[in-house]
C-alpha cells in the first residue's frame, strides 16, 4: 500500500470547489440583501408606506364576474379580490387549455391529411394565428368581431332558454328544489355507475378470452344518458331551473358567460391551438413509418394502429413542448385587461395596486401566483409524461 500523498489545501480540487461555491453563494445572498435594503430605504425616504395591512380593508370597488366565490360590494376585502382574481385566472386557463388541446389536436391531424385542400387550410390557419401578436388578436375578436356583430340585450338571439347578446351568453342554471328527491336520484345514479363498471370488467375478460370486443364506451355513454334521465323522472324531477329574464338593461338570473371572458377564451384557444397543432404534427411524424407497417403486418386495423401504435409513441414527443404552451396560455390570460375581463392582473395587480399603491407586495404576490400555477401545471404534466414514456427493461 502506498501512502496517500498529502496535497496542500489550496490545491485540493474538492476544497477549492467548496470555497468557490461558498464565495459565490455569499455574493448572491449579499446582492439580494443589499437590493432589499436599498429598496426598503428608498421606500422610507420617499414616504411610501408598504405592508400587508390593507388585506383586511373593505375593497371600495365592485367586481362584476365571480362564478364561484361570493363578492359583495361593501363587505368583501382586498384579500377577497385577490382570490376572485386567482379564481378567474384559473377558470380562463382551464377553459383555454381544454379547448386549445382539442382544437390543436384536430388541426394537427388535418395538417397531415392526404387531402390537399384540408392540409393547406390547416397550414394557413397555423401560419396566420401563430404569427399575429396575441393582444392584437384578443382586441380584434372582441372589438371588431363580437361586439359589432352581437345584438343589444333587447334584441338578443334566442336559442330556446339560452340567450346571446353583446353582454355575453346567458343560460339557465339548475337549482335543487327537492333535496330528498335529489338524494334519491344521486343514489340511483351511483348504482347505475357501479353496474357499468362491472359491465366494463366483464367485457374486458370476454375480450381476453374470446377476442370479441364490445363498444364499451358508447354503450356506457348511452346507458348513462338514457338511464340517468329515466331515474331523474323516477326520483320525481328534483331539479328546478333559474331561467334568465330580460330586465331593464340585461338578463337577470341564470348563469352568464360574459363576453370579455368569451373573447379572451376564444382568442387564447385559437392562438395556442396553432402551436399545439405543430407539436402534434411533429409528434406524429416522429413515429417511423416502419411502426405502422409492422402493425398492419400483425393484422391490426387502421383504427387500432393509430390508437395503439402511433398515438402512444407520438405523445412522447408531443407532451413536453405542449407543457410550455399550457404555461404560456395561463400567463397570456393576463392580457385580459384589454377587453375588461376581471382576472388576477386586472383586479389585483391593476385596480387594487392603483387604489392602495402597494406595488411591492401586490406585484410580489402576483408573481408568486403565476409561479405556483406554472409549477403545478408542469408537475401534473411531467407526471403524466413519465407515465407514458417508454419503459425500458
Amino acid at each position: 500500500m502506498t501512502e496517500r500523498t498529502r496535497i496542500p489545501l489550496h490545491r485540493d480540487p474538492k476544497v477549492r470547489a467548496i470555497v468557490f461555491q461558498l464565495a459565490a453563494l455569499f455574493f448572491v445572498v449579499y446582492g439580494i440583501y443589499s437590493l432589499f435594503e436599498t429598496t426598503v430605504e428608498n421606500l422610507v425616504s420617499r414616504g411610501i408606506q408598504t405592508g400587508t395591512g390593507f388585506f383586511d380593508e373593505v375593497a371600495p370597488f365592485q367586481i362584476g364576474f365571480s362564478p364561484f366565490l361570493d363578492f359583495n360590494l361593501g363587505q368583501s376585502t382586498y384579500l377577497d379580490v385577490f382570490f376572485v382574481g386567482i379564481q378567474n385566472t384559473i377558470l380562463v386557463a382551464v377553459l383555454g387549455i381544454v379547448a386549445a388541446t382539442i382544437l390543436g389536436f384536430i388541426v394537427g391531424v388535418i395538417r397531415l391529411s392526404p387531402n390537399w385542400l384540408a392540409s393547406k387550410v390547416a397550414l394557413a390557419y397555423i401560419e396566420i394565428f401563430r404569427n399575429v401578436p396575441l393582444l392584437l388578436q384578443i382586441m380584434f375578436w372582441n372589438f371588431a368581431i363580437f361586439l359589432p356583430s352581437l345584438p343589444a340585450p333587447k334584441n338578443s338571439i334566442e336559442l330556446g332558454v339560452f340567450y346571446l347578446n353583446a353582454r355575453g351568453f346567458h343560460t339557465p342554471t339548475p337549482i335543487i328544489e327537492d333535496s330528498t328527491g335529489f338524494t334519491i336520484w344521486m343514489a340511483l345514479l351511483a348504482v347505475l355507475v357501479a353496474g357499468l363498471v362491472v359491465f366494463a370488467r366483464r367485457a374486458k375478460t370476454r375480450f381476453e378470452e374470446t377476442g370479441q370486443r364490445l363498444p364499451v364506451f358508447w354503450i356506457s355513454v348511452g346507458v348513462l344518458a338514457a338511464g340517468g334521465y329515466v331515474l331523474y323522472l323516477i326520483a320525481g324531477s328534483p331539479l328546478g331551473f333559474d331561467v334568465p329574464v330580460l330586465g331593464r338593461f340585461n338578463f337577470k338570473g341564470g348563469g352568464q358567460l360574459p363576453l370579455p371572458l368569451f373573447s379572451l377564451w376564444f382568442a387564447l384557444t385559437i392562438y395556442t391551438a396553432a402551436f399545439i397543432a405543430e407539436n402534434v404534427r411533429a409528434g406524429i411524424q416522429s413515429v417511423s413509418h416502419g411502426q405502422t407497417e409492422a402493425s398492419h403486418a400483425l393484422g391490426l386495423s387502421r383504427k387500432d394502429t393509430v390508437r395503439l401504435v402511433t398515438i402512444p409513441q407520438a405523445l412522447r414527443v408531443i407532451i413536453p413542448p405542449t407543457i410550455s404552451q399550457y404555461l404560456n396560455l395561463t400567463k397570456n390570460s393576463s392580457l385580459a385587461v384589454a377587453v375588461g375581463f376581471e382576472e388576477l392582473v386586472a383586479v389585483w395587480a391593476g385596480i387594487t395596486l392603483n387604489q392602495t399603491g402597494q406595488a411591492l407586495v401586490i406585484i410580489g404576490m402576483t408573481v408568486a401566483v403565476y409561479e405556483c400555477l406554472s409549477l403545478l401545471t408542469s408537475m401534473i404534466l411531467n407526471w403524466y409524461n413519465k407515465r407514458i414514456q417508454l419503459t425500458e427493461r
Partner: protein
Amino acid sequence: MKLSAKIATTFAASAVAVAQVASAGTLDDVKARGELKCGVSGGVPGFSAPDDAGRMQGIDAAVCDAIAAAVLGDASKVTFIPLTAKERFTALASGEVDVLSRNTTHTLTREASLGLNFTYYNYIDGQGFMVMKDSGIKSALELDGASICVQAGTTTELNMADYFRNNNMSFTPVGYETSTQTREGFEGGACDVLTSDKSQLAALRTEMKDPSAAMLLPETISKEPLGPVVRQGDDQWMDIVAFTLYALINAEEAGVTSKNIDELKANPGNPDIARIVGTEGNMGELLGLSADWSYNAIKQVGNYGEIYARTVEPIGIPRAGSVNDLWTRGGILYAPPIR
C-alpha cells in the same frame, strides 16, 4: 481575493448609486438633461392628445409646456410620456417622469401613502354618466342593474361603487385599461353607461362615430380636482410646478396675455404686473430659476384663460361662470399672489 474585493466594491457602489437617485434634485436633473419629462394620458382630447403634427395638445400638456418654459426657457423642450391610470404613480415615484400632469384627482390616500405631492388644480371636475339617447334614461337614479364601462384603477371606479351603494342600486362594472377602450366598449354595446369625469365624457363623446347619439346625465356624483403631481421630498421642485401654474392664473387675473406681455414688460403700469413679467423683485431667483421664468411661460404658452380657450372649449365645455372660472368672475380658481 482581488476579484472578490472588486465585486464587493461594485455591489457597494451600486447600492449607493441606487440610494442617491432618490434624493437628487429634480430641478438640477431637468436642467442637466435640457428637457422636461412629463407624464400625461395622451388619449384625452382637451387634456392631452397628439394633434395632426404629433405634438401633445391640451390643458394638461400645456402645464408641462409652461414648466419647461419657466425652467429651461423653451416650451418645446418637453418629452411627453403617455401613461395609463395604472402606471402613472409608479412612473412618477420611480423617476421616470419629473411631473405627472395626467388629469389626476387629488385624494387623501394618494397624498399620504404614495409618496406624492399634489400642487394645485388646472381643472376642477366632477364625475358623471353618459348614456345613449335612445335608452330613454334621464337620471342616474334609473341605472339600477346597468353595465357600466369604466377605466380600471381610477377614483371614478370608487365613486361609482359608492354612489350605487348609497342609492341601493346594483351594477356590473366593465373595467378597461384606457379611456379609448371604455369608449369603444360603450359604442360597441359592451355596457349601457360610460362613466368618467364629465370633461372626459365630453371629450370621448367628440371621438364617437355619432356624438349626437349619446348624452350626459345631469348628476355630478363626485369632486375631482385635477392637477399636476410631483414626488415627495423635493420641495423646491414642488414650488416651481405650483407657482408656474399660479403664474398662469395670476396672469389672466392681471390681464397679461401672450399677445400683450412684451408691451407690459416694457411698461408694466402696476407692480403686480411687473412682478409677473419679472421686471420687479427676485421671484425667479427665489425659485432657483431665471428672472424671466414667468415671462417665458406666459409668452410661449399663454395665460390660463388662453390655454383653456385653446384646449378645453373646443371639446364643448364652456368656461364662463363655471367652477373653472376665476374667483373674480364667479369661479373658484384662486391663485396665491406672486410677491
